[in-house]
């Protein structure tokens, strides 16, 4: 019964999202409508999606319905089960926060020339597309929803299109989204051919030979991996995500990438079904490379939003490492371990949605009040916008996987799954997993370095430019949106057993086994495998931390030693410290850049010593461009140059070619 509620609420969320889109498109250039009607509707759609997700996760089974839309012989099938419920929850949580944050944030665009109708309209359609993807129960609707999501987000990336760089980023995004979409379509084609139907029920029933199953897996991995921004198909992501308005960036990085993860899980676990361990090895390798390259490039960035986008590549890499572990364990018949890795992956999915949403919204808050995206111009923002500063700190600590926040729990679970590698029979696999977990550990430490840099340079120290010095606190609505996500980060870190109990039905459904041990010792103790194997109590840790810290602070606040005197910082007895003497974002990252220099394409020009007005130039490029993208682009170009000979401008020749093609095709299928 509760599944029907879930379906109903999901439908309501869909209608609200479409309503938000419709209202903004009708409103034209009336900002009040966008602010007071469209954005609240957007937020309500999020709340409705959260409720729907909760109903779906707490209920049992699935609910389906058929809408009289779409092709005559193929109406739209909608379905809610635990998996789609979980992703509805993820979408809804971030969307609710965006709904709180949006009304004040879009004020910043009112004075500009950009179309508010486009912002609200495509925003609503984008949300509707994402909701529809997770609800779709046939390949046709799935592809329609997928394209709706890709196209509307294309318009949002191109929102400030007067800037040529934004147009270029948007075009690259569109191109990659469609190559990915093509791969997904072909993957569905393989499944539909064996299942004799385009609805997912038929595909589930299909019996694929291992070779065809691997082909379907490969196509799905290519398509969804491209959308998820896995290395080396990530190049569009750090271009496209930063140029969208920040609340949309939060949705793209926090949620849309997760929709790609949903698609991958749906196709590989649910539709293809016969999991082979070799797939896990592929995922493990690609995930490890993505995680490491993502974080290294994030560390090198000085544009805050670009940095966050690269960090999304890294986090998706971590999710795919965990998914790869799951496939590996499942393919070698260890269902409980597979469930553990799968739960770790999903836990990281929701965590990344929360903290990346928070960080992108925080970056938007900085942009809103200081009009700055470049870390090198920031500094001292904690004292100018304290609430944003504290919430952003929560995001930084969470993403750095530090206890007691949420990022730590998913990383801990992934490590626990990896540490069970000794149960595998094959020595090669046993030694592959430790290498992946070494990469994961290195990634985690580099993430901490990245976010020390971000927070230290942006929020601490002194302002490096005049407009940042004049930054004002952001309005209450934006603060509330940030606060909601920050609170959820803490909640998901402190109550892991409850969250895992919530995720468990998804693992039951997809892997065929849950992690019943996780909360078996009571809600205080997280024991994923067995109490003597591993246990972590987040509530007690945070209680102890708070108790001792509270005691220490109380101890020093009493009596005569409580005075603190303000003075100038240490200047070595020479010149007083100047904001430009501070370590910059580039100089912070310099040692690590030097250590990992081989992985970057570094162009550096040092001014000669006798130069009176020296300028230092540094460009850090992505090797993927030179190794993959440019050769492919050149190949396509030279191929089209050959094809262009056919273009004579004569209609009769064209008709001749068309006829010839038709004949060849008829000959092939007959």
């Amino acid at each position, binding site marked *: 019964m509760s599944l029907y509620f879930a379906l109903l609420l999901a439908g309501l969320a869909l209608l609200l999202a479409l309503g938000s889109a419709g209202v903004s498109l009708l409103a034209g250039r009336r900002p009040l409508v966008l602010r007071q009607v469209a954005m609240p509707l957007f937020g309500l759609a999020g709340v409705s999606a959260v409720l729907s997700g909760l109903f779906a996760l707490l209920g049992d089974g699935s609910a389906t319905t058929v809408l009289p839309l779409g092709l005559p012989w193929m109406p739209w099938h909608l379905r809610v089960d635990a998996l789609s419920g979980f992703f509805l929850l993820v979408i809804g949580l971030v969307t609710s926060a965006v709904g709180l944050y949006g009304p004040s944030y879009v004020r910043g665009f009112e004075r500009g020339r950009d179309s508010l109708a486009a912002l609200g309209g495509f925003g609503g359609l984008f949300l509707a597309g994402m909701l529809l993807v997770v609800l779709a129960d046939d390949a046709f609707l799935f592809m329609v929803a997928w394209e709706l999501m890709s196209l509307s987000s294309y318009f949002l990336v191109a929102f400030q299109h007067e800037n040529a760089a934004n147009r270029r980023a948007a075009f690259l995004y569109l191109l990659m989204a469609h190559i990915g979409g093509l791969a997904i379509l072909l993957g569905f084609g393989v499944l539909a051919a064996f299942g004799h139907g385009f609805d997912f029920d038929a595909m589930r029933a299909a019996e694929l030979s291992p070779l065809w199953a691997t082909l379907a897996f490969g196509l799905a991995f290519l398509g969804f991996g491209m959308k998820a921004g896995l290395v080396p198909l990530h190049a569009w992501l750090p271009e496209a995500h930063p140029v969208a308005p920040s609340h949309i960036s939060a949705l793209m990085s926090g949620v849309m990438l997760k929709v790609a993860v949903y698609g991958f899980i749906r196709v590989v676990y649910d539709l293809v079904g016969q999991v082979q361990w070799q797939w896990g090895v592929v995922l493990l390798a690609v995930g490890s490379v993505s995680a490491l390259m993502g974080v290294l490039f994030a560390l090198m960035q000085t544009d805050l939003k670009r940095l966050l986008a690269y960090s999304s590549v890294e986090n998706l890499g971590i999710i795919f490492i965990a998914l790869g572990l799951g496939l590996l364990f499942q393919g070698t018949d260890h269902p409980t371990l597979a469930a553990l890795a799968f739960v770790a992956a999903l836990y990281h999915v929701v965590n990344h949605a929360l903290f990346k949403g928070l960080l992108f919204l925080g970056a938007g808050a900085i942009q809103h009040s200081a009009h700055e995206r470049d870390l090198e111009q920031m500094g001292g923002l904690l004292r100018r916008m304290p609430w944003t500063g504290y919430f952003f700190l929560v995001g930084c600590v969470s993403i750095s996987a530090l206890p007691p926040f949420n990022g730590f729990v998913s990383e801990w679970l992934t490590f626990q799954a990896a540490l069970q590698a000794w149960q595998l029979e094959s020595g090669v696999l046993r030694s592959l997993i430790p290498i992946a977990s070494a990469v994961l550990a290195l990634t985690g430490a580099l993430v901490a370095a990245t976010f020390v840099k971000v*927070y230290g340079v942006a929020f601490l120290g002194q302002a490096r430019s005049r407009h940042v010095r004049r930054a004002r606190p952001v309005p209450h609505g934006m603060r509330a949106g940030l606060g909601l996500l920050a609170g959820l980060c803490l909640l998901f870190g402190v109550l892991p057993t409850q969250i895992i109990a919530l995720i468990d039905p998804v693992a039951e459904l997809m892997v065929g086994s849950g992690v019943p041990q996780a909360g078996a010792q009571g809600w205080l103790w997280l024991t994923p495998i067995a109490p003597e194997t591993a246990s972590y109590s987040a509530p007690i840790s945070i209680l102890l931390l708070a108790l001792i810290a509270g005691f220490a602070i109380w101890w020093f606040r009493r009596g005569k030693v409580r005075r603190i005197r303000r003075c100038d910082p240490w200047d070595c007895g020479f010149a007083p410290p100047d904001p430009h003497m501070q370590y910059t974002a580039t100089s912070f990252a310099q040692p690590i850049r030097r250590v990992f220099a081989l992985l970057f394409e570094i162009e550096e020009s040092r001014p000669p010593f006798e130069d009176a007005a020296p300028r230092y130039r540094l460009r850090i490029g992505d090797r993927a461009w030179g190794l993959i993208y440019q050769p492919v682009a050149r190949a396509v170009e030279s191929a089209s140059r050959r094809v262009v000979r056919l273009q004579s401008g004569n209609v009769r020749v064209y008709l001749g070619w068309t006829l010839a093609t038709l004949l060849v095709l008829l000959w092939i299928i007959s």
Partner: protein
Amino acid sequence: MSAWLVALLQALLYPALAPLLVGWVRKVKARLQNRRGASVFQPYADLRKLLVKETRVAHTASELFRVAPYIVFVATWLAAATVPLVALDLPIAAVADIIVLVGLLALARFFLALAGMDAGTAFGGMGASREMLVSALAEPAMLMAVFTLAMTAHSTSLQSVMAHHLADGFLLRPSYLFAFGALVLVALAECGRIPVDNPSTHLELTMVHEAMLLEYSGRHLALMEWAAQIKLLLYGVLIVNVFFPWGVGASFGALALGSGLAVVLLKLLVLGALLAAGETVLAKMRLFRVPGFLNLALLLALLGLLSHVILEVGA
């Protein structure tokens, strides 16, 4: 109940004993350098003096600067409290395992580095940047080393690892040797000892850990210094108790606990003397030699893990 009492007692022993270890290392080092050196109890007097002195905070510093010492101290202490010092089978083991321990130390380091950047001076940022470089390379090595132990014992609980090692007797495992080497190198780097960092340097340009503390004074400095001392003790206990667990108290009787304490102190004295000897004969490395040093640690740890999963699991 008595188990929790012993856990509390052990947790209190860490801050109580930490300055002594530092004093002992300094004393031995002084004797090796033909100096007489200060009393081994000098660090206690230093802490006491700092705690009552006036505390100064730079104009440019924010609230975070004032809160960070508490977070660093508490996180380090909690991490230490989970490492068995005198007895096994403590209930605190269920609260936090080895990965949480590494996470708590990372939390402390995160706030230490942020505090370094808060005053907005060049040295603080330099210290933070270098510290994060060192930790980025040391942390994976540390995790790999403890994973080797955890995989052997089939548990990430430090107590189970020790209990497993005790039950094994004097069995020499190649993976343990590699993990031991890695952990020693990591400990040197993480505690800011020679050859990675010099704890007694007075030249700002060569500082790593001290550069981040440059702006601190009074009780804030005391807490930061104390946390660093606890961290040194933590790594010392980790090395001596995990790789040489013999002598640790098996029950909660006064005799077992007392002998456990005496044995661990003896082991720490030997380790401290070795550290002092090492610091006397070695020179501090250039910063860009440190990655090579830590890559060696990572390689050793990875070799340990691989030799475990390839040689020891199947056998």
